[in-house]
């Protein structure tokens, strides 16, 4: 099967509006999680990765009037515009747009402060298409917390089948009161910044982000390139809001993705886990990694730095994984204290430099969905 190459990318997050700023923050160990007041919570607020509205509007102003676009639209449009700026030769008529979001502009539901049907996911997709003049109808994926990574897998599959030769994969989600109240009703929101895989983890922190990644069937110009060489998803078929105790779907996803990549678990140099910091999720992941034979492989979760950015997270984390491979850098799994899962895991406690070639990115979500992606670094001939 044909590979796809991961070319330019942009991350818009509380840690900056470019991938470079985000990588600098991660190297310095800075987290985007801050305390935000909200009277829904008994302690008066929650920790989350929220993008500062005014800085976003300042960055957006060259593209349009920030008053006419929602916060999410500004984030997503900014991400795409920066990809287009870096690639002036890109033809929009032959570039597909693959969008992932779980809730889009959900806070516009029943609210008419913005014209059009933008509270609806199709409306959001159409707005992004029309803003730049993409000719193809966007392919929009809403598949819970694996959406961003699944969008990348969908782009690869359709690209490999020759349906298009390049695509911009775009993910975005907000920390809306809608989602915050829902996770709070599950008792899942951590009263402190989340601690993935830790003994003292107390639940998730939410975050907001937009991420965009240009993928192509053609290689990049540089000395090395990163390609997506294996991907798979599988459903647990056990519960809609709790992960499988045996890590069934994630295990199967990892098996299938490695098989497609023609690799064995021992070839994996680094795992970028989902790591939401809920008791059940992290335990399920540890079980699935153990069953997969990924013993001692350096592993982290980016949730301590960004929070869980839902439909953006797996794309954002795939982009960070790409840069880990390119730069031979491994980022610390922030807020980790002491191992709190039943299987041994080699959690990255500090920033490290290490020669890397193969990385595995995983994600899991409500509805029992799981995803695994295998990324590979190769020298250009």
């Amino acid at each position, binding site marked *: *099967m044909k590979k796809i190459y991961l070319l330019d990318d942009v991350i818009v997050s509380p840690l900056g509006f470019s991938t470079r700023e985000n990588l600098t923050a991660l190297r310095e160990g800075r987290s985007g999680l801050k305390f935000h007041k909200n009277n829904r919570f008994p302690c008066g607020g929650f920790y989350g990765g929220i993008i500062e509205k005014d800085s976003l509007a300042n960055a957006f102003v060259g593209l349009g009037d920030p008053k006419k676009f929602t916060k999410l639209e500004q984030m997503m449009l900014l991400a795409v515009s920066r990809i287009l700026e870096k690639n002036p030769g890109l033809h929009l008529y032959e570039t597909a747009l693959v969008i992932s979001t*779980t*809730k889009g502009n*959900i806070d516009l*539901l*029943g609210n008419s402060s913005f014209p059009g049907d933008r509270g*609806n*996911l*199709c409306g959001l*997709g*159409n707005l992004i298409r029309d803003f730049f003049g993409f000719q193809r*109808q966007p*392919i*929009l*994926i*809403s*598949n*819970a917390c694996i959406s961003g990574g*699944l969008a990348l897998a*969908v782009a690869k*599959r*359709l690209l*490999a*089948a020759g*349906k298009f030769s390049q695509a911009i994969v775009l993910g975005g989600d907000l920390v809306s*009161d*809608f989602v915050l*109240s*829902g*996770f*709070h*009703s*599950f008792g899942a929101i951590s009263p402190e910044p989340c601690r993935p895989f830790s003994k003292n983890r107390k639940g998730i922190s939410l975050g907001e982000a937009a991420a965009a990644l240009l993928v192509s069937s053609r290689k990049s110009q540089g000395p090395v390139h990163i390609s997506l060489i294996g991907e*798979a*998803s*599988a*459903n*647990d*078929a*056990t*519960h*809609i*809001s709790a992960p499988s105790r045996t890590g*069934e*779907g994630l295990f*199967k996803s990892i098996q*299938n993705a490695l098989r497609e990549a023609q690799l064995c678990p021992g070839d994996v140099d680094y795992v970028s886990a989902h790591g939401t910091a809920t008791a059940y999720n992290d335990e399920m992941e540890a079980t699935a990694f153990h069953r997969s034979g990924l013993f001692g492989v350096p592993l982290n979760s980016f949730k301590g730095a960004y929070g869980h950015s839902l439909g953006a997270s797996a794309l954002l984390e795939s982009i960070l994984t790409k840069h880990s491979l390119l730069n031979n850098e491994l980022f610390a799994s922030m807020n980790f204290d002491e191992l709190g899962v039943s299987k041994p895991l080699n959690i990255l406690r500090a920033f490290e430099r290490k020669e890397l070639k193969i990385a595995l990115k995983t994600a899991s*979500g*409500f*509805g*029992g*969905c799981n995803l695994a992606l295998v990324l590979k670094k190769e020298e250009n001939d």
Partner: protein
Amino acid sequence: MTEFSYKITDFVRLKNHGIFHGTAPVFKAEKSLALEQFLKESYNKLEIAYPKFHKMDGLCKLGILASEVLFKDHTISRDTALVFSNAASSLESDKNHQQAMGGVVSPAVFVYTLPNIVLGEISIKYNLQSETVFFIDNAFNPELLMDYAEVLLDSKKSPAVVCGWIDLKNAEYDVFLCLISNKGELPLSKENLKQLYLFENE
């Protein structure tokens, strides 16, 4: 071009208070019936003994009813992929959750505010540990469904695919699911998918 020729093995339609298996009516309810009542009567008519059904939101109930009809005459492999799409996402549950936000929010409502939960419910009921995806589109898009189904089949990621449209908005529902595999007579094509979707069973 795909390497193989795939077939539309079977299909199911839920619309206008009716359930159709292929072109044959399975159940036709009174037009005056409210959505909840229609879903319940359909459940009884199809003799589905699955108490979890009653806890589901409308979108998931529609998915279970449609799958029950579609899977009836076939042996379904665990690796059968689910490729669903709609325009309204999980709008009905979104509205219910939003209404509750002023007071007591229920996790049992919130969990249904994702369109892919219907894929999870079907996977649980029929024990499918397969590839699943939920696409959001302005309208039924036979090209995307066919392209994606073919990719899954060609790459051997799935031996069969259930794909289609499952939309619910303001108690109006529109469901069309079909089973794609190498069995059957009707070739998989955009035109055939479109015709079956548009077919009016009156």
